[in-house]
């Protein structure tokens, strides 16, 4: 079975991916890179007391060598579950019911657990949010860093120790020689996260998935860790998937962005364009709701623009577009029809019926569009949505 998936032609994987992934539609100038990891139409379901719940509903993305893909979303958006599926680390109640995750010609999702182990850590590694919980408190840091190397590569204890020191040096833990003998509780939060990164790098993976790696850290330490990640990634031409809720972090390190809402991608694009002109109302609203240190809201004590309501529970998703109950431009169509990911501009994908209008920052023209009236008739002098430009908030 794994042989079959290995045999699956690259062309087929490519063909299935182009419809959804933003990389495929990148502007002509850039050479189209072969993705390291390509996730296509992933569906993950959980068995719960309320029945079967879809945590991830048709997610596709691709990660290229030397590039960073940020997956942004709120809690319950499915961003972490989708990564656990790729890693083969889903809890027993969860099941991948559709989709593939191609890594160098192999569909990771079609592998049996034992086969998956050969990829986990070796080719795709993961850094978890809570380093204190992810590290074993009763083993030294050096032991944990090289556990996999000893088990799989048969490294001797002396070699493992040397390698552990190298790894700590790599992530810039000062005094690595002495610190390999220490236990996780003797490390500060930032240093622990460095240890996590070092252990993920031990087997030299092609793709690193980092799930909220800096969320538990102070801003000053966060800056250090993000800087380190970016440096290592550039050096090794690694593909990095950064899962986060922090749009500030995304702007700082990502090349491409996938915004998730209610289990699927609602917007996918390179980082620059998505911040300059979001093509989905959710992205736009998220960007507007960040309080700034630049003091845009000084003096007037203006209310923070917020998204009403809260993210829907996977057990009770709204009909039509899952964002419509919270959307500021929702139309009748949005209540009934699920919007597909469409491309309102080159290298842009948005799952909004009115993606082109949102991108152009003008009100949606629902009626006109459905009546199919000519262009000229549909441009009445509607007030421009200037105040909704995220940049417009920071005068």
């Amino acid at each position: 079975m794994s042989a079959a998936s290995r045999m699956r032609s690259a062309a087929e994987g490519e063909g299935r991916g182009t419809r959804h992934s933003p990389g495929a539609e990148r502007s002509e100038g850039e050479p189209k890179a072969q993705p390291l990891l390509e996730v296509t139409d992933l569906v993950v379901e959980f068995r719960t007391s309320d029945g079967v719940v879809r945590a991830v509903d048709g997610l596709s993305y691709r990660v290229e060598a030397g590039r960073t893909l940020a997956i942004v979303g709120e809690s319950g958006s499915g961003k972490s579950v989708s990564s656990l599926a790729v890693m083969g680390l889903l809890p027993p109640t969860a099941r991948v019911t559709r989709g593939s995750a191609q890594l160098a010609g192999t569909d990771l999702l079609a592998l049996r657990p034992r086969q998956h182990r050969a990829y986990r850590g070796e080719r795709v590694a993961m850094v978890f949010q809570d380093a204190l919980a992810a590290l074993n408190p009763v083993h030294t840091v050096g032991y944990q860093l090289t556990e996999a190397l000893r088990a799989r590569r048969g490294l001797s204890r002396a070699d493992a120790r040397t390698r552990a020191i190298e790894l700590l040096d790599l992530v810039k833990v000062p005094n690595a020689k002495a610190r390999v003998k220490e236990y996780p509780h003797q490390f500060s939060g930032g240093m622990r996260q460095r240890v996590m990164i070092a252990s993920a790098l031990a087997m030299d993976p092609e793709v690193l998935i980092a799930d909220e790696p800096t969320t538990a850290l102070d801003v000053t330490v966060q800056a250090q860790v993000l800087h380190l990640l970016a440096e290592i990634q550039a050096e090794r031409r690694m593909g990095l998937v950064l899962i986060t809720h922090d749009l500030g972090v995304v702007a700082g390190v990502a090349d491409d962005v996938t915004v998730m809402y209610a289990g699927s991608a609602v917007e996918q694009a390179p980082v620059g364009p998505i911040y300059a002109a979001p093509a989905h109302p959710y992205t736009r609203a998220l960007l507007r709701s960040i309080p700034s240190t630049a003091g845009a809201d000084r003096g007037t004590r203006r209310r923070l623009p917020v998204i009403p309501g809260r993210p829907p529970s996977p057990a009770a998703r709204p009909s039509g577009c899952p964002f419509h109950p919270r959307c500021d431009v929702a139309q009748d169509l949005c209540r009934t029809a699920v919007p597909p990911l469409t491309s309102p501009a080159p290298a842009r994908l948005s799952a909004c019926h009115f993606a082109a209008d949102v991108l152009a920052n003008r009100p949606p023209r629902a009626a006109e569009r459905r009546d199919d009236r000519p262009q000229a008739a549909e441009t009445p002098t509607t007030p421009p949505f200037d105040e909704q430009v995220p940049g417009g908030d920071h005068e």
Partner: protein
Amino acid sequence: MSDAVLQVRELVKHYPVRRGLLRRSVAAVKAVDGVSLTLERGRTLGLVGESGSGKSTLARVLVGIETPTSGQVLVDGEDVSTLSRAGRKQLRRDVQMVFQDPYTSLNPRMSVGEIVGEPFAIHGIDPAGGRRAAVGELLELVGLDPDHTSRYPHQFSGGQRQRIGIARALALRPKVLVCDEPVSALDVSVQGQVINLLEDLQEELGLSYLFVAHDLGVVRHIAHDVAVMYLGRIVEQGPEQPVYDTARHPYTQALLSAVPVPDPAVRATAGAAAQPGGLVLEGDPPSPVDPPSGCPFHTRCWLAPTLPEARSDAPGSRPVPTVCATETPALVPHGDAATHVAACHFARELAAPGVES
């Protein structure tokens, strides 16, 4: 015009470090080490700093969860420490707390009605119209359905739970709310809702907030005044605008420059990932058991080694001006406003615009 509702004078909170068979105190964690603050009525004072800076300890002392080692806490001019037990309890009604984690700060075995009504029970108060009605009103005040009193915390989302926590804190009609990271556990889209609620409640009820947070953007939005803590001390303090726009302490500047800016264009101009302002502090904050001599920040300060006065004591050590390593700088005005104070010997060096690394 000063109308202080809460004053803190030279507050110190040390925790003994005990060792050996006799549990003798061998050292002290200097969590809060001489802090003075004034919270004006109807205003919000933001308290920022890294973890371990003592900001949460300070908050806990203010609501009476911890007793101070020394120093005074004055509520409406009355010194809490000189009061009798009964008097303290009375005063404690005036200062209530909203906790960070809405998942662990609500008892899962109590219904919402019991949680929000518990302050009445503890203080033996029967509000006009009965507790049930009062609880309903409180829930309505924070934007929850008053009919949900018989539900349990697990039936609510994070944002709703934080609203329950706020309703509980408001039950006794306090003058001051101490909010310890009230929105940091919430999703971005829900965070704004709770911030707006807190601002509305302040206006409606004339509340004063001490707002402890590590998110500098949130603090800038909600606070009128800001105090920056480092290793148990305040290193900079003043109205929100000058502190953010013309920070006079190198630590404040470093904190501000470490905040990720949600704008990829900033990265393009800065050239390096994840460090828009270019000031990345090295290492972690030192241990509060053994804080550095002189200015507590001198071991991580990015400014000190660049000064002409800098010299290193031992070969290989970090060069800093002698005064930074020996004398603790006092909080003195440095900006245009007399209320904007910073504790740095070289604050004037930072006054020139464009001093970035």
